[in-house]
C-alpha cells in the first residue's frame, strides 16, 4: 500500500476504498470466489452446514502467539468445526479506527491469510468500515464461517454420557494469561504465549479415524471450567475433573498465582475438549498427540451418572490432589485480580 495511514476515505466506497480492497485484501486473501467481486459470494457447498459468527475486539491487537486477525480466523474456524464439520468459507468484516497505520493493517491481513491457508478455508467475502477516531479501539474484526458437516449427526454439548472420557488437546489458560499480561504491561510472565491455532484438522482426524465422538467444544471465554459446566448442564450429567491431570504450564500457573486468577477459567484459543466413550479415549489421545496442536493431549476427567457421583446433574466436581472434592462452578462475571 502506498498510503501510510487509514483515513475515513478508505471506508467511503470511492477510489481510496477500491485501492484498499485491491492492494490489500484481494492481494492477500485472493481466491476464485472472492475475485469474482460480486455483491455476494457464490459457494459450492452441499449437505447440512454449520455456521458461526464472532466479533473480535481483543486488546492488545498484537500479542505473543498471534494477533486480532489470526484470532478471528482461528476462533471462527474452530467454532464451525466443533459440531463435527469441515470449515470451508469465511467472511471477514473490518471496523477500523481512522489513523491506524496501514502497515499495521497489512501485517494483520498477511497473517490472517496465512492462518486461513493453514486451516484450509477461503475468505470469500468481506466488508471494511473506517470510523472516526475514538469510535472503536484501533480495529475490530468480525468473521463468519460456514462448514460442511462430516459426521452423520452433529456433535453437541447435550451428548455427553455417563462413562465417557473427557479429553483436552493441551494446556489450559495460555491465551487468557498472555492477553491479560500484555494488556497490562506486566512483566512477570514473559514466556507465556497465546495458543491461538486452527483445530479443524485434529477434529477431522478424530472423526475419520476414531469416530463415536459425543462432544467437541473449544474452551474459549470462561475457560475449561465454564465450558464443562455448560456441557454438564446440557447433558444433565456430572463431570468429574481430576485437578492434577489438567495440564497448565508452569509460567501460566505462576502468573495466575501472582494475580489471583484461576487458569481453569482463562480463555484458550487453540485447545479443544473432546468427550467420547472411555474405550476410545486412548486411541483418540494417541492420534491427537501425533498432530500439530495436539501434542499435549490428555484425559482430564470422566462423565458420571449424577445418581452415583459426588455432584448433582449439571455440576462439575473437581477432585483435588489430596483426594477431596469441590465444586467447579461457572464464573460469575469476569475474573478480577485481587488486592492482596
Amino acid at each position, binding site marked *: 500500500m502506498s498510503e501510510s495511514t487509514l483515513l475515513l476515505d478508505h471506508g467511503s466506497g470511492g477510489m481510496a476504498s477500491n485501492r484498499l480492497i485491491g492492494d490489500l485484501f484481494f492481494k492477500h486473501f485472493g481466491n476464485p470466489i472472492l475475485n469474482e467481486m460480486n455483491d455476494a459470494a457464490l459457494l459450492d457447498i452441499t449437505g447440512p452446514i454449520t455456521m458461526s459468527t464472532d466479533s473480535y475486539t481483543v486488546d492488545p491487537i498484537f500479542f505473543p502467539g498471534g494477533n486480532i486477525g489470526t484470532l478471528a480466523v482461528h476462533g471462527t474456524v474452530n467454532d464451525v468445526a466443533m459440531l463435527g464439520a469441515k470449515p470451508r468459507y469465511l467472511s471477514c468484516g473490518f471496523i477500523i479506527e481512522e489513523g491506524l497505520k496501514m502497515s499495521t493493517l497489512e501485517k494483520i491481513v498477511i497473517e490472517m491469510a496465512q492462518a486461513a491457508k493453514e486451516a484450509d478455508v477461503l475468505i470469500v467475502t468481506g466488508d471494511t468500515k473506517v470510523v472516526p477516531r475514538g469510535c472503536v479501539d484501533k480495529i475490530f474484526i468480525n468473521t463468519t464461517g460456514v462448514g460442511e458437516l462430516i459426521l452423520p449427526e452433529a456433535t453437541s454439548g447435550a451428548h455427553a454420557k455417563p462413562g465417557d472420557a473427557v479429553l483436552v488437546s493441551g494446556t489450559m489458560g495460555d491465551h487468557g494469561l498472555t492477553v491479560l499480561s500484555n494488556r497490562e504491561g506486566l512483566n512477570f510472565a514473559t514466556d507465556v504465549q497465546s495458543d491461538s491455532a486452527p483445530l479443524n484438522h485434529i477434529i477431522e482426524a478424530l472423526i475419520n479415524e476414531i469416530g463415536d465422538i459425543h462432544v467437541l467444544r473449544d474452551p474459549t471465554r470462561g475457560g475449561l471450567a465454564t465450558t464443562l459446566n455448560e456441557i454438564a448442564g446440557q447433558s444433565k450429567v456430572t463431570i468429574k475433573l481430576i485437578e492434577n491431570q489438567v495440564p497448565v504450564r508452569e509460567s501460566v500457573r505462576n502468573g495466575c498465582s501472582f494475580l489471583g486468577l484461576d487458569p481453569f477459567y482463562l480463555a484458550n484459543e487453540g485447545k479443544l475438549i473432546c468427550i467420547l466413550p472411555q474405550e476410545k479415549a486412548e486411541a483418540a489421545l494417541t492420534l491427537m498427540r501425533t498432530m500439530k496442536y495436539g501434542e499435549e493431549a490428555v484425559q482430564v476427567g470422566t462423565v458420571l451418572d449424577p445418581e452415583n457421583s459426588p455432584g448433582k446433574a449439571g455440576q462439575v466436581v473437581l477432585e483435588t*490432589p489430596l*483426594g*477431596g*472434592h*469441590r465444586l467447579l*462452578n461457572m464464573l460469575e462475571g469476569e475474573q478480577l485480580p*485481587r*488486592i492482596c
Partner: protein
Amino acid sequence: MNVSDSFKDPELCKKLLEQLHNELDAPLRFMEVCGTHTVAIFQSGLRQLLPKEIVHLSGPGCPVCVTHESEVAAFLDLAEKDDVIIATFGDLMRVPGPKGRNLKLAKAEGARIEIVYSPLDALKLAQNNPNDTVVFLGVGFETTAPTIAASIMMAKQQNIANFKVLSFHKLVPPALKVLLDDPECAVDAFLLPGHVSTILGMEPYHFVAERYNTPGVITGFDPVDILESLLIMVEQRKKGKASIVNQYKRAVSDSGNARAREIMFSVFDVAEAQWRGVGTIPDSGLVFNDEYAEFDALKALNITLTEVPQTPGCKCGEVLKGKMQPNDCPLFAKACTPAKPVGPCMVSTEGSCAAYFKYQVTA
C-alpha cells in the same frame, strides 16, 4: 519435586491428616483470619478431609469485606466527580454500595475507572492524564499499604500533584484484639495471615498468646502449611501454653520487613477506622501525616464520609467475627448470591460467603 510443590505433596498431607486425627483430643475452633486461607482450604479440598471436630471460622481478613459501607459510598460519590479518574484493584468493582450500586455499574454509565495491578500503575495514569485527578482507592491491610505509601513518596519526589489516594487501609492486629475482647468470641486458635505477616513479622501478635492465652500460627497457603499449623495448635492446647509460631519461615521473617514498615509510617499515621460489620476500632487504620497531606484524596476532593444504613438482614459482620458460618446467614444463596451480592463477603474472591457458595459440595 521443587520446594513449592513439596507443600502440596498429597502423601505428606495424608500423613499429617492421620496425625491430626490421632492427636485431636477435643473440638478445635480455629479462625482463618485471612480470606486467602479460607479459599485455600476450600480450593485444595482440605475442608472435606479435616476431622469433623475441627470447626473453621472466617475472620476479618478480607480487605474488601471489611471496607465500611460509608467508604464504598465515598467511592461511588467520587465516581460522579468530573475530572476524576479512579484507579482501583479489581476486587472493588463489584462491591455493593447504597441502593445496590457499584463501581462496575458506574463505569458502564460513564465514570472513568481504571483497574490497575499496582499503585505505581495509578501513578503512571496520573502522569499520562495531567488535566485530571487520579485517585487510587487505598484499600487493604499491611500487605498493600507500604507499596501505596511508596507510590505516594514517589509522587512527591516527582511533583505529580494530580495523584491522590483515598486511604481506607486497615491494620490486622487491632481487629484481633476486638475479637478476643468479645465474650462471645469462641476462637481456640488463630491461623495468622501469611501475606500481612511478611510485613509485620511476629511481634505484633504476641499479645494474642500472652494476654489471651490463645495460640496463633503464621502460615502459608498450601495444604501442608495449614495441616502443620493445625497440629501446632492442637499440641499447644495439649500443653496448655499458648505462643505465636512462625510456620511460614520460607516467606515470613520473624522480624518482618522493617523497610516496608518504615515507608508505610513515613506517609501514614495510625488512627481509628471503621470496619464493616465490626464497628470502629481504635488504632486500626492509616491516615495521611502532615508531610504527605497534599496527596490525601479526602481533603483534596472534599470527601466526607456519610452514615449509610446497614443493609437489612446482611450478616457479614457476624461472619467476619466468627459468630456465624456463611451458610447460616438467612440471605445466603437466596437473596445474596455472587450474581446479586447483598454484602461484600459474597463479592470478593477472598470473601468467606463467596468461598462457601463457590466451593460447596453437597455429597
